[in-house]
């Protein structure tokens, strides 16, 4: 009696916790609201199954508790029942999976008009690179990385000269513009994750990974590294500021292109070298 009641109470408390807890998703700030919808669907379907199975268990514990005079039923199997339960479960699983795969298909299909930007991760921080007027990011190679050329851009690639280098943990994006983030890492695995955008992907040294989204709300959102990357993992933060058109242009105007930075850095290096002499 007591046992069955406590088990039932645990389930009821779980439901109560869900309804009264202040903890739930942060409001979505990108186009991935349909990820939330699939989660909500899964949440209610599986939640119902959980509650039903556990309450049924509690009921059995109460109804069929030990009685000296009772004799348990002898029933090795019930094909019909098992068959039904199997198909019902399979149906439920399909209902959860199918919408998920549809959304995943969207997630991995980048629209052609997406604005390509590079996120460069290192232990432990973030840098960014935006294409210049040509809209194309220049080629990079890790062999070219040096003090003057912190991103390892290929100076011979005509596309690279006007690339804008944001050597700062804060990134600005224009509202309602589809963005394809190309993820690059200098050293180990990282993961570019903004909870409000719902999207994430690991960055890997040696290859470029990507995902895309459309920022749909202005505001300042925290970037968290979501793949363990060493002692400073927890401190690897940054911000994405989603701006209206005008604020964005203002910010962009203050950023420096690769050509200028390279020239400046080279000059600085020259000066340092001369001073040494």
């Amino acid at each position: 009696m007591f046992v069955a009641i406590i088990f039932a109470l645990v389930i009821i408390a779980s439901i109560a916790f869900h309804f009264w807890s202040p903890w739930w998703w942060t409001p979505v700030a990108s186009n991935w609201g349909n990820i939330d919808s699939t989660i909500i669907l899964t949440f209610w379907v599986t939640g119902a199954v959980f509650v039903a199975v556990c309450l049924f268990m509690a009921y059995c514990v109460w109804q069929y508790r030990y009685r000296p005079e009772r004799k348990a039923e002898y029933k090795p199997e019930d094909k019909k029942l098992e068959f039904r339960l199997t198909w019902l479960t399979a149906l439920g699983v399909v209902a959860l999976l199918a919408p998920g795969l549809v959304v995943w298909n969207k997630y991995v299909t980048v629209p052609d008009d997406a604005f390509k930007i590079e996120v460069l991760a290192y232990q432990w921080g973030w840098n960014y690179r935006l294409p210049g007027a040509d809209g194309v990011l220049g080629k990079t190679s890790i062999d070219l990385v040096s003090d003057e050329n912190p991103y390892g851009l290929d100076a011979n690639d005509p596309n690279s000269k006007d690339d804008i280098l944001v050597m700062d943990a804060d990134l600005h994006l224009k509202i309602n513009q589809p963005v394809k983030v190309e993820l690059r890492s200098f050293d180990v695995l990282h993961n570019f994750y903004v909870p409000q955008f719902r999207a994430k992907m690991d960055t890997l040294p040696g290859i470029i990974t990507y995902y895309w989204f459309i920022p749909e709300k202005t505001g300042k959102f925290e970037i968290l590294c979501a793949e363990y990357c060493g002692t400073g993992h927890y401190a690897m933060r940054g911000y994405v500021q989603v701006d209206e058109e005008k604020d964005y242009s203002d910010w962009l105007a203050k950023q420096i292109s690769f050509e200028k930075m390279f020239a400046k850095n080279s000059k600085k290096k020259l000066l340092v070298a001369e001073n040494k002499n």
Partner: protein
Amino acid sequence: MSDEYIDNKIETKSADSSSGGYAPPADHIPAKEAPDQELYHAKSFWTKWVFCQDAKVIGVQYALTATAIGMIGLILSWGMRLQLGFPETFSFLGPATYYQSVTMHGMIMVIYLLTALFLGGFGNYLIPLMVGARDMVFPYVNMVSYWMFLVAVIVLIASFFVPGGPTGAGWTLYPPQAILPGTPGSELGIVLMLVSLSLFVIGFTMGGLNYVITVLQARTRGMTLMRMPLTIWGIFTATVLALLAFPALFVACIMMTLDNLIGTSFFMPEIFTMGEKLETGGGSPILFQHLFWFFGHPEVYIVALPAFGIVSDVISVHARKNIFGYRMMVWAIVIIGALSFIVWAHHMYVSGMNPWFGFFFATTTLIIAVPTAIKVYNWVLTLWRGNIHLTIPMLFSLGFIVTFVNGGITGLFLGNVIIDVPLSDTYFVVAHFHMVMGIAPLMVVFAAIYHWYPLITGRHLNQTLGKIHFWITFIGAYAIYFPMHYLGFIGVPRRYFEMYDSPYMASGVGLNQFITVAALIVGFTQFIFLYNIFTSWYKGEKSERNPWKANSLEWHTPDYPPTHGNFGKELPVVHRWPYDFSVPGSDKEYIPQHVAPSEVPAAKVEKT
């Protein structure tokens, strides 16, 4: 009944001689069950209790070693919880220490505690007894298996004392960071970890060889595969999985050791770190992840399948009812085992692998939910119309059902590729896997210990302490991990030493403190359990033979508790499956497996 036994002896002999007829001559060796069977009989204290070849003693050795290292894992978790609940309060915990605790806690719990306990501990103790064998088929190899495990554990512990400390690479040990200086313990710590794992794999393979072949070839007469208790089915399938999956870990360990020690580039791409470019290049970190999870996912089922099996038997015995849908239960175990090899990349949806893999692995992963759900239905349907004794093993089994269903359905979230995108690497994942492969299997471990402790020691565990242990562990653990999912919903990433004042995290402070307090209480309760185990060994209430009135062979040995050789002079002959409880027509409430039909004439089972 004695007639039966003599019969058996003669038939065994004739069976052996007839097998020589068609098999290659060299293949013919008298079976161990023949009268002059060759068990190693211990002559001294050392060979009887230390370098012992008796699977029962080896099982206990495995279990004690696993528990000892598991306690270290438990204590490490306290350090982590203190930091998460009350940051900046405990100065001894820096980020490096924190990450080392995370790593060692994970590795210890998954491999050195759960795997060793289920397969090495319960597997060794129960397989020969439950299938009606005198011992494992290769007792010497079995002994070496334990000692390899012990050496692996010692190497693991040694890594705490080397310069730089143990590795802090996370239990997944992803390169390149595992062997780069930005990670704690990237010099000797990681090397010792890899060596320890390799030793574990070698040692396990020796043990696994025994478990598989004993189940396949050394069962007693009448014990068909479909008459085996589900415990054996679970352990057997898990062992097969382990034999096929551990090589992947072994391969990954060897290649990473070489990357670390002699500078090869199996997993190391071109890397620019600390202001210079390393000499590595061309290697693939994703290859490591594939190898790791090709081992890592079956590993989940290596822990889960024995738990499934054991809990089925415990529920059946204590509900006095046959397990509902035995055949379906066996099929589910086999199907889950087979499927577990083609779902591994669901741990890698956001790893940067080809995104089109997502479709395949999400589908296979969700297919696994079907046989798993059937198992859950069948456990609950076994309770239906049973006659349930709410003993402590039964309580833990009920606790298992709740935590397993909870952890299982959150698996449906994470397996569905698009839902995994926002949830991966958050506390939702932490809550999910602790619920489903931490708490749920541990519930079964406890159920099994309370269930079989009388068999091992001849005494019961203290019931009051047992009830306290159950209620605090079940409710406490549920209170830790159920709310933790919600931290994942708000987006808190895992493996964060500190969240500082992230806006959406501020609201979780109270929750984190609550979880920490609950974790400390649950952790402390486990010491009550250990106290119970050690004191009951000498002082516990004496148990009569077969206290739970179970049918399987381990309870029906001539000596109780079973002694060396398990079954006295003659091996039992099996006449039925182990679930003949409350058989219609019979005046007996239960009919043990070795009872011949002539002894229970009235028992009649209708065709299904």
